[in-house]
């Protein structure tokens, strides 16, 4: 009777068990839709499976060795870096600027804020088609407009950096609302008392923004940048619709190159290896950003 007490099986225990059971559907979903395909991709990346030639069950690092000497892959990483850097920077800057600006709007006009969300709701292929027309001189209303004044707008899509600029534009237009939303939410978490206190102490609007608002926004900014960066690694619709990777190979980003290898060249194993590399890159960078976030918030 006396001595060791057994853990009491009371109401809390039952609740805990209930909670644990409720996680099961989510675990199943993540398992089936994320873990299993990821494991499959892992397996493929280390194999020599070719869609047409089949496989010799030759597992190893051969795909990764090939990646090291693949000039087209190096080119694609360079392209991806350009698209990611400029795209994410513009999206975060414009999104934040719009968020800060919209915050000042009060009253009836607040409903108008929804207009800024609309670009985010457009499917990416539609966005790509719209911007393709805008950048095609024979179809674009922009060119027609400037033609009236005798000015010729250059053809962006036929030059290397012009094409990158065009894709960054289309990408930014559709994705800046995401940054805007996150920053707006973060701004609402900042007590107006802080700004008031700073104003009373004689700080200008700009100084308040730089020394008070921005540091408080830092975690949100970091998170938005990370999310947009990971998303930018998956760049496909804009490239496929607007330039097909051209001119030459100057907009052939890494994910697009993985598509070419997998579906055009039927080299499924190599495409999987490239995708795995992208996944590891994203994972690594997320890890470091998370650590950075910890330091910033503490």
């Amino acid at each position, binding site marked *: 009777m006396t001595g060791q007490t057994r853990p009491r099986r009371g109401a809390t225990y039952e609740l805990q068990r209930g909670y644990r059971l409720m996680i099961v559907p989510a675990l199943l979903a993540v398992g089936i839709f994320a873990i299993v395909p990821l494991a499959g991709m892992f397996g493929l990346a280390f194999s020599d499976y070719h*869609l*047409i*030639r*089949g496989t010799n069950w030759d597992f190893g690092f051969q795909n990764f060795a090939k990646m090291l000497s693949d000039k087209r892959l190096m080119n694609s990483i360079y392209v991806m870096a350009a698209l990611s850097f400029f795209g994410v920077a513009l999206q975060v800057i414009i999104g934040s600027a719009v968020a800060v600006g919209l915050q000042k709007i009060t009253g009836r006009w607040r409903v108008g804020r929804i207009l800024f969300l609309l670009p985010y709701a457009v499917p990416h292929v539609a966005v790509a088609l719209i911007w393709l027309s805008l*950048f*095609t*001189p*024979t*179809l674009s209303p922009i*060119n027609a407009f400037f033609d009236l004044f005798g000015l*010729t707008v250059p*053809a962006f*899509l*036929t*030059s*290397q950096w012009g*094409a990158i600029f065009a894709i960054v534009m289309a990408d930014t237009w559709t994705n800046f609302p995401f940054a805007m939303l996150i920053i707006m939410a973060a701004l609402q978490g900042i007590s107006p008392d802080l700004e008031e206190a700073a104003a009373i102490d004689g700080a200008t609007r700009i100084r308040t923004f730089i020394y008070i608002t921005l540091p408080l926004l830092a975690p949100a900014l970091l998170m938005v940048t990370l999310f947009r960066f990971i998303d930018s690694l998956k760049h496909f619709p804009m490239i496929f619709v607007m*330039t*097909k*990777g*051209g*001119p*030459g*190979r*100057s907009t052939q980003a890494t994910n697009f190159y993985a598509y*070419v290898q997998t*579906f*055009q*060249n*039927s080299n499924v194993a190599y495409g999987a290896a490239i995708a795995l590399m992208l996944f590891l890159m994203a994972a690594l960078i997320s890890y470091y950003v998370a650590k950075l976030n910890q330091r910033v918030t503490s």
Partner: protein
Amino acid sequence: MKHLLSKALVTSFALAAPFAPTVAQAQEVNVLMFGMPFTNGLLELTDEFEAETGITVNMDVVGQDVFESRITLSFTGGTGDIDVVHTPVIQVQKWIQAGWLQPMTDLVSEETTSDILAGPLGAYNVNGDQWALPFFAGVGLMSYRKDVLEEAGLAVPETWAELLEIAPQVQNDERAAIALRAVPGQGFNMFIFPMVMRAYGGTFFADYENGDLTPAINSPENLEALKIYVELINEYGPPGAGNFNFAEVNAAGQNGQIVFAVEGTGIISQLVDPDKSRFADVTGIALPPGGPNGRSPAIGVHGMGIPADATNVDAATQFIEWAVSAETVAKIAMAQSFPDFTTASVADNPEVIAKYAAIHPDFLATRVEALDLAIGHYRPLVPEWPTLGQAIGEAVNAAINGLMTPEEALEQAEADMRDIMGQ
């Protein structure tokens, strides 16, 4: 519990049903195609086939992306759930190499094959065996603005050199001389550019017809062709022509921004259709330009084949022969916008002639003429073609957009070809 057990038992029987041996009388055929005027028209006629033969038809017409995933799953999984499959000529090489198709040489009758145009039929003849029967052949043609040429007192150019000569004379501030595909891809710029290549005697391989697959793209003939292509697009194309695909060529033609277009019949037919183009009435059709080595119109063929693991091979053969027969094709040609048939006798059908003459008098005749000139291996019928086409297309596009000189582009193309062919 008992309830659950009996339910499970019944479900397992139901799941096992597809694997049960098919009863000899209840024949059926499973057809998978992707959406095009012919396949849509065929879907509407399946009742007639069922009435004629008593074979049940389970036909699916899906989008091209859905099609790709379904056939990949079916073929790699060996499920045998498809008896008749849509076989675009570009894919057929890969499928043959992967062992996903079975030869139809001994299955189809002489009667059927003799009524099919030689070029498209030859496109499915690999290693002496017939692997599919064609139902569609898009061919390269040229459209031109009759009013512009009349005004300038010029005749329709017969060669690329002539076209280059008259281009500056028909070009002005409002319109460019010609629009051609430039974007990289085996189905994009590499559908049009080989017309110029072959007109000048250029080839992809040293001696394709006799099996010598040494890459030969870096040749003086191909260089001349590439320089002409680059010049036509840069000097005589609309602004931004370096990123043109068939959609932009089509739009430019319909808006009267160009004088000439060399494109597939899918686009040309829209340029002469009064419902689509404002300039349809003043647009004429001709064979694509030739060169010192003659004319080689582009050709893109679609057909029907039988997967290697098909379960209903007899029914499949009957279905295919019925689908490409003159009666069926004529009916579809009348019901749909489908002038791209490959069954020869349909071209003599007065109703069909009348229907398409209403759209444009020369269309059918010019098309058949072009098909007679076309070669089945316009784009080499090797399994590596999609990869080769992509790499060469990128090099051609780079030359067009000034990222490389034509010489450098062909050097890169040949180096890529050697990598891909494993040499």
